[in-house]
């Protein structure tokens, strides 16, 4: 088990390294170097040159990459151009807001998706099953930022049930949660669909398994068979699905933060672009990528820990 966990984390390190190389290559290959991008069109050649050497852009490419890579390992993602603060600090300041948003979205998707999928499986082929099926496809199809805008329009602007902008007063948990409802729902509602479909499918598959027949043959109550014997197995893939889904949720969070004017990584990057604050953009991309890869690895490790079958295939 430990061996598997280490192996899985090792793979994550390799993937992040390759992703960093790609990010670096992208910066290098695309015409227009970061220095002139940062300074804008009115910069003099001398200013560009000065910034280039300050950013180390006059060094050979492999030196630049090595510097980029190893300083990132140390947690040094460079200096923000405007304020001169370390990028990592700026990004970490915003990270909790985005994490709260994603945690909220995951809560919605699990709390609604698992029961819906379960009901659909139990009522398979019936009216309820079909309605849940069509709704699942529909919420998966519609982009989350459209849902974000319309939920803002309906619940915040027209009905005024919930606050429209911001993340709530600092220190006031109730107000913060209230501000979290709409944006996290906008991100999570598509995942309600994904999870409902997946739970339905894996529930149906599990109910066909021979150990369920054994449980029936021993006269266990049908409710215990469904919720304790079958659901326990059927929800396991949810963890993998959510692990993979976190990447998409980070993307959706960018929109949700902009639509609801919430602080967070997405808003940080969006604002950094308009002032060409390039180190912040790279830093935020790196941090979210590492976050996504690590979450994925942990999802796999958790699955291995929860599912004895997976666990045994590694030992």
């Amino acid at each position, binding site marked *: 088990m430990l061996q598997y966990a280490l192996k899985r984390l090792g793979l994550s390190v390799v993937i992040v390294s390759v992703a960093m190389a790609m990010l670096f290559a992208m910066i290098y290959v695309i015409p227009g170097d970061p220095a002139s991008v940062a300074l804008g069109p009115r910069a003099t050649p001398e200013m560009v040159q000065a910034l280039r050497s300050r950013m180390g852009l006059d060094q050979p490419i492999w030196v630049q990459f090595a510097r980029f890579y190893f300083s990132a390992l140390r947690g040094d993602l460079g200096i923000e151009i405007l304020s001169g603060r370390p990028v990592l600090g700026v990004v970490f300041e915003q990270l909790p807001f985005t994490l709260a948003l994603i945690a909220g979205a995951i809560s919605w998707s699990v709390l609604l998706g698992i029961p819906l999928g379960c009901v659909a499986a139990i009522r398979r082929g019936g009216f309820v099953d079909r309605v849940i099926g069509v709704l699942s496809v529909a919420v998966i199809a519609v982009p989350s930022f459209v849902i974000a805008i319309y939920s803002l329009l309906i619940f915040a602007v027209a009905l005024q049930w919930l606050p429209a902008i911001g993340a709530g007063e600092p220190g006031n948990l109730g107000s913060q949660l209230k501000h979290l409802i709409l944006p996290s729902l906008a991100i999570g509602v598509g995942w309600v669909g994904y999870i409902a479909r997946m739970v339905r499918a894996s529930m149906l598959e599990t109910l066909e*398994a021979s150990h369920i*027949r*054994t449980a029936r043959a021993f*006269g266990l109550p049908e409710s215990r068979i469904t919720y304790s014997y079958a659901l326990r*197995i059927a929800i396991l893939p949810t963890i993998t699905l959510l692990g993979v889904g976190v990447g998409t949720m980070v993307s959706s969070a960018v929109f949700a933060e902009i639509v609801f004017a919430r602080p967070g990584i997405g808003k940080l990057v969006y604002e950094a672009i308009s002032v060409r604050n390039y180190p912040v953009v790279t830093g935020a991309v790196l941090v979210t990528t590492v976050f996504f890869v690590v979450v994925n690895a942990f999802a796999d490790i958790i699955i291995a820990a929860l599912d*004895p079958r997976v666990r*045994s295939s590694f030992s």
Partner: protein
Amino acid sequence: MTILDVKDLSVDFVTETGTLQALRKVNLAVPANRIVGVVGESGCGKSTLINTVLGLLAENGAVTSGEILFEGQSDLVHLDANGMRALRGQKIATVFQDPMGALNPVLSVGRQMRDIQYRSALSRKEKDARSIEMLRKVRIPDPERRLAQFPHEFSGGMKQRIAIAMALLMQPSLLIADEPTTALDATLEVAIIELLKDLQQQIGCSVLFISHHLGVIAELCDDMIVMYAGEVVEHGSTRDIFHNARHPYTKKLLACDPARLSRREPQLPTIPGTLPDLRDRPKGCIFQARCEFTDEACAEMPPDIPVGGAHVTRCWHAGKTTGARA
């Protein structure tokens, strides 16, 4: 006393391509304290028979006639779902064919054994103690420690022992064993058979033992039932059937058993022809298309004809077939 008495049982399945007559007027009896073997090719209705007795028929299946008397009183055909559930696991226990898949993979063996005792008023500790005692009876070493383990930590043979332990946990009066040794290799098979025989005597239950392995049936069973295409074609003591088979199908089945061949044959003998289509069941005798004795009489369905003692066969020509080996 007769523990299980199946009379005139017929079961149909409604499928997209028509109604499938899976069982037709099946008669069988499992007396107290005896082991009854059921033998037949795949598709002969063995599984449907078990599922009907257990009340676990698929939704498209229905009993169209007959009754199933359990311990001489309750007719299982008309018992409601709750009444049936109260019998399953308590009075009627089952061991299934596939030991790999028969146990829930994400629950510990102890949890599953405790769940089976959910009707009992014992404390959790006492239930676990009973589970341990039962595991010891099926010769699982170190059962106290093993109780906390998950199914994948046991070998195939051990899993089947655990399945037997689970089945006998509530001291049922009828144990249904659905090809419990088919998925195991030969040495394990012998061990499981001996274990079953041993435990059956200890607990004093009856066993309905399904197998397509004639050797195992001969070894284990007191009585046997031969099924073909949803009908019981012959029913009697194991001794009578092996030495004096009266139904032409039984004779051919015995002749095809590799273990019973007197000399090495270049090719294993087979029964010519194929199983009849159960969606379009032939009128009359079910075996007529493959039988060498077929004549006009066979156009009518034969009754169960007694041919000596409890030995019965569903063949018009039971008188003619004596002694003649197929």
